[in-house]
């Protein structure tokens, strides 16, 4: 048993599984953090809308630049997210419809346009397709040059880390910084927008900034882990955390913990789980991470100490 564990965590683990797990954790936490505020502001589905428009964004970037390098892709996706948010606002005002319908109209249209452009242009030579955008390629983000745990101290090997890892780390740092710097403003404007306005917080600007941060998180994470995890991590860990506590700080702590657990367990089950049932194949890690986050949310719905609304009687 111990031997198994040591081989399981040996050189092969560092090479094949360490980087995907770390990237999964970084992506999950980067999405869960802004997700807490979106959840409390009843904007949970903004994450859904944004992750759908990432596809047209990268397709547009590809059509303009003709290459699939990371930077134009991320700019395209980020731009598409901002365009989508503005379009949603326009449809909401013009049609005087509820935000949900406006969102549904905009993101399905943009997604459809993205698929259409993808089908009409010759992208067969490059690796860009709908499935990739949905599922990511977490399993393929391996660290070729790693020879074992000692490689973590080897600058030559470290230079060959998948680029998604440092990128996500920087984005996560930026998100943590944003939330720490504007902690008071975010908290007040989330719980009492009118009061926040009265004491001089520019709630609209802050709200837009939150959406931009969300878009950045979605765009950085989707490249590595795909849209499904992005949507799941925006909603599930914060929602489960909301059922655990009444304090924002603790809620964020819980959500980070849930995100990390989902990422680690999801990856492990996807990679090693089928082996326990005698199947040599792995299943989709992205799908499994989303599934685990759903199971955590289900448990929180059943047993979370703060699962009821204030004043709602607990059922016997």
């Amino acid at each position, binding site marked *: 048993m111990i031997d198994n564990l040591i081989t399981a965590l040996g050189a092969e683990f560092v090479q094949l599984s360490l980087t995907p797990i770390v990237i999964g954790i970084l992506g999950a936490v980067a999405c869960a953090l802004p997700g807490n505020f979106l959840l409390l502001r009843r904007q949970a589905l903004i994450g859904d809308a944004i992750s759908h428009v990432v596809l047209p964004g990268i397709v547009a970037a590809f059509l303009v630049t003709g290459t699939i390098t990371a930077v134009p892709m991320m700019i395209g996706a980020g731009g598409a997210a901002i365009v989508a948010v503005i379009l949603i606002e326009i449809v909401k005002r013009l049609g005087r419809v509820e935000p949900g319908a406006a969102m549904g109209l905009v993101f*399905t249209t943009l*997604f459809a346009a993205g698929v*259409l452009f993808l089908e009409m242009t010759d992208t067969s030579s490059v690796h860009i397709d709908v499935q990739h955008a949905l599922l990511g390629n977490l399993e393929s983000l391996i660290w070729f040059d790693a020879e074992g745990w000692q490689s973590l101290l080897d600058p030559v090997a470290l230079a060959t880390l998948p680029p998604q890892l440092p990128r996500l780390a920087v984005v996560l740092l930026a998100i943590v910084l944003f939330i720490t710097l504007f902690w008071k403003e975010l908290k007040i404007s989330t719980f009492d927008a009118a009061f926040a306005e009265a004491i001089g917080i520019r709630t609209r600007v802050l709200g837009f900034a939150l959406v931009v941060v969300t878009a950045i998180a979605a765009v950085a994470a989707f490249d590595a882990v795909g849209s499904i995890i992005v949507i799941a991590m925006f909603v599930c860990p914060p929602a489960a955390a909301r059922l655990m506590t009444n304090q924002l700080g603790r809620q964020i702590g819980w959500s980070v913990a849930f995100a990390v657990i989902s990422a680690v367990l999801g990856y492990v089950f996807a990679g090693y789980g089928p082996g326990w049932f005698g199947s040599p*194949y792995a299943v989709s890690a992205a799908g499994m991470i989303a599934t685990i986050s759903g199971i955590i949310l289900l448990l929180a719905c059943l047993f*979370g100490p703060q699962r009821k609304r204030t004043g709602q009687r607990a059922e016997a």
Partner: protein
Amino acid sequence: MSFLDYFISALFLQAGYNSALVAVGAGLLGLAGGGAGAFIFLRKRALVSDAISHATLPGVGIAFMLMVAFGGDGRWLPGLIIGSAISSGIGLLMVEWITRQTRLTEDAAIGAVLSVFFGLGIVLLTIIQTMSSGRQAGLENFLLGSTAGMLISEATTIAIAGALATAFVFMLRRPMTLVAFDPEYAATTGINVRHIDLAMMGLALIVTVIGLKIVGLILIVALLIIPPVTARFWTNQVGPMIGIAAAIGGLSGYIGAVLSAAVASLPTGPIIVLVAFGFFVISALFSPLRGGLASALRHWRFQRRVHRRQGLLALARREPIYDGFTLRILRQSGMIRRDGVATLRGKTASQKAARDEARWAMARRILPDDSAIERYDGLTPIEDMMTPDQIDEIDRVISEQSGAPA
């Protein structure tokens, strides 16, 4: 045969039995989607259908695996439809359960259900890819829809189911309208609101599962959302709105399917969605009721009237006018000459405007409770809003106060 020829022949169902059946099926699907979507839109629960559609995927996977396990063809459409209906039904009940039992709001429940069910579905699809090689091909098509290589039996299934769903919408339209507008009142008339809500979502579910093959589960929600939003531009009444939504949905499905049949490489789902969006853009711009063009025109007319009025009042008071727009309007309507001096017509009009302004000012003092005062927009001549008797009375008070005969 050129694209246009083919498109036109396909539009009139002359391009072969199979594509005609697909087009009719897509049209019926759109009809049912627009009709059912209208009620969901009025109930403000448009995105619940997004959770429903994403929740179909595990059902598709499990149904496929079961049918293969029992030695059948895993791609048999009715089986996949039943499987997807069961799993999206569970998804729908989960959304309801989370919203009712916990403090989480509906949007959080929607996001959670759609992402988790979709993730689970993807896990199942990757399992299917590793079993029984070769036969799994095609399940990915449920993500974005595909009509290429569709069997006649499948097209018939979709067409029949679409017609049935349309019939259900028609049958349930009265209780659904009541619940959409006033759930409390509906409850007092003895309607079980929760059941009707579930029926409404059940219709969305039917549209979703029969649309999986043509439109795909990511975009099917567009057929439930875009037509009602578009229809809302054209009418303020429920009945017509549902009819228009159904018509737009039907046309989008039909035209989209025909277009995608005419250009073989185009995927059907996205085309249908973009056709529907085309209807939305046209409506948002040109609808006389709430369209962008109509309201821009209204705004422009109002602006002209305000500038004209203010210009005339300035003329009457012999004040200089500096505003370029005001000067242009006065010049165009022949009120002033090029050098800014009032013409005879301008003098008459400006005196009339000044008298009107004075009458309104007096009316506000002596008839403060008159309904015309409340409705006055600052522009309408007083003759249009008050009776001659009232105006005579106003003139009498004005002349008394200024000490001169009227």
